[in-house]
Structure formats: C-alpha cells, structure tokens
C-alpha cells in the first residue's frame, strides 16, 4: 500500500503509519449551508477527514454530496458517505463522478438504514447494488477507468474507498468472513460501528489480524462519547447491532447527572488510549452525534493532536 | 328438569360449535333474525379440541362485520357451558332475548318489512 490512489489526506496519514482521525458531520434538515460549515470548522484542525452522512436513519436531509462540497470549499477534507437505499447504479455512478469533479477524495459505501426508520416510511427503496457491490463499483470506476456498463470514463474518479464494519452485529461467527469479503471487494479503509465493549472488539481485531486482514485494509475504530446514562441505555436497548456493556451504564449512573457528559468524554478518551495500543487499529472514527464541539477535546486528550504533517 | 325458556328463538343443532361459519350467522341476519347466540362447550373441554375456540373467533368476526354495516355487533354472542348446566342454558337464553328486546328489531328485518310493503302497494 505504498502508492497513493487519491489525493486523500486520510490515505496519506494511514499509509504513513500514523493513527488516522475522522469525525462525522450530519447535514442539516434544511438548505442552510452555514450549519455544515460551522460544524466542519469546529473540528477542522483536529481530524484528517470528516464523514458526511447520507440521509442517516433515513431522515431526509441536505444531500451528502452538496454538504461535502461545502466542506471541501472550506479546505476541509470530506468522506462522502453513500447509501444504496436511495439511488440505482445510474445515480450512484453519476454522483461518484460529481464528487470526483470536486476532487472529493474519500467515500464510504453503506447500505443505509431501512426507510421505515425515517420520515418517508412509505417510500420505495432501491438497493440496486448492495454496499459491497458499491465498493466494487467505485473501485472499478477508479482502477479500470470504466463504467459498470463497460464504457471508458474520461478522467476517472480518484477516490479512497471505505466500507463499514460492525464487530458486534449478529451472527458473530461471520464477522471476520464478512470483513474479508468487503476487503476482497476493494475496501481500503474500514470504519467500525461505535465500540463500547472493548473485550469483544479486541477479540474481533485479533481474528482480523490473524487472518492478515489488517495488512490489506486500515481499520478505524468507531467512537461515540455518551452524553448521559439515558443515551447509554437507549444505545443498548434500541439501536440495532450496538453492544453497550453494563459497566459503562453503571459508571455513567454512578456520577451526578450534570457530570455524566464529562464522564462520557472521559470514557471515550480512555477507550481511545487503550485501543491505540491494539495491533491492527489504524485510527479512530469519532462520531460525536450533535456534539461536534467536543471532538477537539477528545482528540487532544487522547494524544492524537496535533495531526501529523503528510 | 323442566325449565322455562323464551319461545321466540329457534335452536339450530350443530355437531360441534366448530361447525359454525360466519356465513351461517350472516344468513340468519339476512333472513331477518334480530339476534343470534352460539352455545358451545366449556373452553378446554371441546371434544375436537378447539371447535369452541374457532366458534368464538367466527362470532367475533360476525360481530365486527355487523357493526360495520350498521346492524350491530352486540346482536351476536358466544356462550360456553357444560352439558349438565340446564339452568344456565335457560338463564342465557333469557338474558339474550331480553337484550335483543332492548335493542329492538334488526334494521335488516325492518328494511325487509318496508320493502315487502312497497311491493304490496305496487
């Protein structure tokens, strides 16, 4: 993994062997770009790239691509998240070219939450491709310089391609085979689901290392600080595929309410420090949901600041 | 045991209440019945295991439909008793007849009467 496939800073940081740092920014439910820019500027110097979600939880929002462009124009490197729920292969390829025209250098391929969670529960879903096939598609467009239909692309997209992994989803025994499959499809970096159960994550990571998967992809551990014990309980009980151990809940419940947020940040920082030592962890994806202002503190206290020059 | 029961209802015997279908209930109303009740064995005592449970579901189905078309779902009811409970059978029949009297004639019967009068006048 020595030569660069894109102009991505994230790619350079990871390939130089530094721990990469990404964060996340959800576009607004309206057309005011200031919200995106504000969030982006808050974290600009503390991360290598900012993921921009694609209508997350199937709630209609400003398009991920448009929000990515706003960030890019401010000099902030975006990771374009793209779900296969809403667009067929024509639209997906077209948006990939659109992103590439603005030199958006990273993409994360996802299937997307089911539309029944969002504000258009009666809408159709597309799923012409699945997330792995989307990874294959971008790689095909970039590496072969061709559309899925076989025609040549003038100025093919130069995009560093990622996929998501959930070390905690069911069934556990296919977690590693599934990761391997995504890598075969061409995922160059992986951002994981939020990690709270460190033991289970370490076991997953050990298996990934044993299979040699960390030689083929960069695995960035997903981190989300808890704002309160209420949020921890909600994540444990309501969010599919989330594993929140009792001890996290007890620890948050053990401090008075107004100090719970700080405790959540502390836990997050401790987790990052602990996982930094784990073989195969290539970086962190810090998803501070509607709490972007805390990202600088987390990055600094975790010893990940300043970001390296690459 | 000689028990007094109302005389204004007809008993239709079935091998098991599980034999009853919603269409039998609807036809009774279509022909002008003001009410209908089904008497099955005690729940759990059905010789065919679930005949009386099926019957209860069908009575409920009929009640929903009758409500929907303005006839009134309260005109149908399911009772359960064991074969040795003659007095209770009598009590249920009195209860049902009184209830139907309270409700008055079924709109279907009234409609039939109006229609036949119209036909007579013509």
């Amino acid at each position, binding site marked *: 993994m020595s030569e660069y496939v894109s102009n991505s800073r994230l790619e350079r940081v990871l390939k130089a062997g530094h721990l990469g740092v990404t964060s996340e920014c959800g576009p607004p439910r309206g057309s005011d770009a200031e919200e995106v820019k504000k969030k982006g500027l808050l974290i600009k110097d503390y991360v290598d790239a900012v993921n921009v979600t694609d209508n997350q939880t199937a709630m209609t929002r400003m398009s991920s691509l448009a929000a990515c462009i706003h960030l890019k124009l401010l000099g902030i490197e975006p990771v374009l998240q793209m779900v296969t729920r809403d667009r067929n292969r024509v639209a997906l390829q077209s948006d990939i070219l659109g992103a590439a025209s603005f030199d958006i250098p990273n993409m994360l391929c996802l299937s997307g939450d089911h539309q*029944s969670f969002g504000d258009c529960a009666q809408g159709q879903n597309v*799923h012409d491709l699945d997330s792995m096939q989307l990874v294959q598609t971008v790689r095909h467009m970039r590496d072969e310089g061709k559309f899925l239909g076989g025609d040549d692309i003038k100025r093919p997209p130069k995009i560093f391609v990622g996929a998501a992994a959930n070390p905690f989803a069911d069934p556990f025994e296919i977690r590693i085979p599934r990761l391997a499959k995504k890598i075969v499809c061409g995922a160059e970096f992986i951002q994981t689901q939020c990690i709270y159960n460190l033991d289970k994550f370490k076991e997953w990571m050990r298996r990934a290392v044993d299979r040699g998967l960390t030689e083929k992809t960069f695995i960035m551990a997903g981190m989300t600080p808890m704002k309160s014990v209420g949020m921890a309980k909600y994540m444990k009980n309501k969010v*599919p*595929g989330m594993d929140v151990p009792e001890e996290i809940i007890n620890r948050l419940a053990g401090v008075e309410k107004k100090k719970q947020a700080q405790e959540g940040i502390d836990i997050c920082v401790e987790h990052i420090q602990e996982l930094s030592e784990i073989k195969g962890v290539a970086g962190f994806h810090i998803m501070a949901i509607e709490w972007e202002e805390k990202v600088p503190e987390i990055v600094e206290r975790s010893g990940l600041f300043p970001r390296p020059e690459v | 045991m000689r028990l007094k029961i109302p005389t204004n209802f007809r008993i239709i015997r079935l091998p098991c209440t599980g034999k009853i279908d919603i269409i039998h209930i*609807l036809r009774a109303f279509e022909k002008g019945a003001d009410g209908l009740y089904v008497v099955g064995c005690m729940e759990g005592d059905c010789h065919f295991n679930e005949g009386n449970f099926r019957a209860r579901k069908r009575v409920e189905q009929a009640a929903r439909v009758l409500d929907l078309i303005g006839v009134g779902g309260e005109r149908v009811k399911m009772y359960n008793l064991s074969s040795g409970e003659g007095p209770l059978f009598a009590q249920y029949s009195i209860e049902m007849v009184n209830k139907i009297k309270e409700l008055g004639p079924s709109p279907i019967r009234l409609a039939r009467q109006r229609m036949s009068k119209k036909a007579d006048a013509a």
Partner: protein
Amino acid sequence: MIIAEKKPIEEIIQEVKDFDRILILGCNECVTVCEAGGKKEVEVLASVLRMYFMAQGQEKTIGERTLERQCDHEYLEEIRNIIDDYDAVVSLACGVGVQFAAEKYLTMPLLPGVNTVCLGANEDRGLWTERCQACGTCVLARTGGICPVSRCAKRVLNGPCGGSTNGKCEISKDTDCAWQLIIDRLKALDKMDDYEKVAPVKDWSTDRAGGPRTVTREDVKI
C-alpha cells in the same frame, strides 16, 4: 402461491355503491387457499353487501359466482352468458384475475375485492409469508435455498447488513433476518465456504425493472 388479503368492506362498499347489479366473482385457486377470495368469501361478501344496502333502503342485485380460475380464458368464458345481467363485477381473484377478466369483458367495470400481497407459503394456520419476488433470475442455489431478494428488506445479496440482531431484521423483531437464515442453512449444509463468494452486481432486467415480463414457449404453442 399468490397471497392476497381481503379489502376492507368499507372500501368495497364505496366502489360499488353506484351500481345496482353487482356480481361477486371468486376464484378457486390461490385466493381460495389463502381464504381471501374463494367461494366462501364470495358468499360472505355478497351477504354483507346485500344487508348493507338493504339497511340503507336500497335494493340491489348481488350475484355470486366462483370460477375454477380467473387467469385462464376457458374459465372466464363461463360467465359470458350472465355478465350482461350485471353493471359491475367485484373480482376476488388476485390482480392477475381482475385484469384478465377486465381484458375479456371490455365494457364491464371490474373492481378488485382483494389486495394482492405476494408470492408466499402457508406457513401456519392464518399465517402466510412471502418467499419469492419473481425477480426472473433465481439465486437460491447460491444462498442455501433462502431468498435474499424477497426476504431481506434491503434485498442485500452480500449480507447481512449491520442491522441484523439476534437473528432478526432491523425493521421488526418479528421479521427473520434472511441472511441469518442463509448462514444457518449454509452451516447445516457444511457450505460456509460459499459465504465468502461475492455475489456480483445483479441483472435486474429480468425483474420488474425490465418492463412487463413474458414467457414464450414455441414448443407448446399450437
């Protein structure tokens, strides 16, 4: 078989209220088995409509008929001699039957009495569940005999997605995760190696996407 579900009576009443002579037309095939549009359902609907309109003081003629099938010319021909006695037909067949009847009797209003739901199986008494979406290119050989197209809410061909929890789908804890079922089957077949084979981008042109589909068999044509 084709699974259908009775339309609400209120909806049918709305559709037929302006007609005086209505034929309720059942079908002896799938809709009979799934108890939505067979002879019995014809009788019930006819009785209900008669009573409803009677209570409204309206005299309507409500006829009842159930055909062997509504998706075959020869059976639909059986009503040709009575069809003119009616102003409208409520067909309790699946969408195929309704349309086939409509094509045959051009000037007769044909109203659907059921909602056609899916291609499914009779899983239990009173429970019918989807098994096939007629995508036109069967993948079951590669997925342990469990269909990801019809049974995964995202028709993910390389699953499961991140929403699979305890064997259930993210859309509902009552819905099995198709990919959990596939993995269970692959394990039972000792074919877990197959799991890592990537399913390529699917050709959906044989699905709905390719337009109305036909099967032509020159060898059986006369």
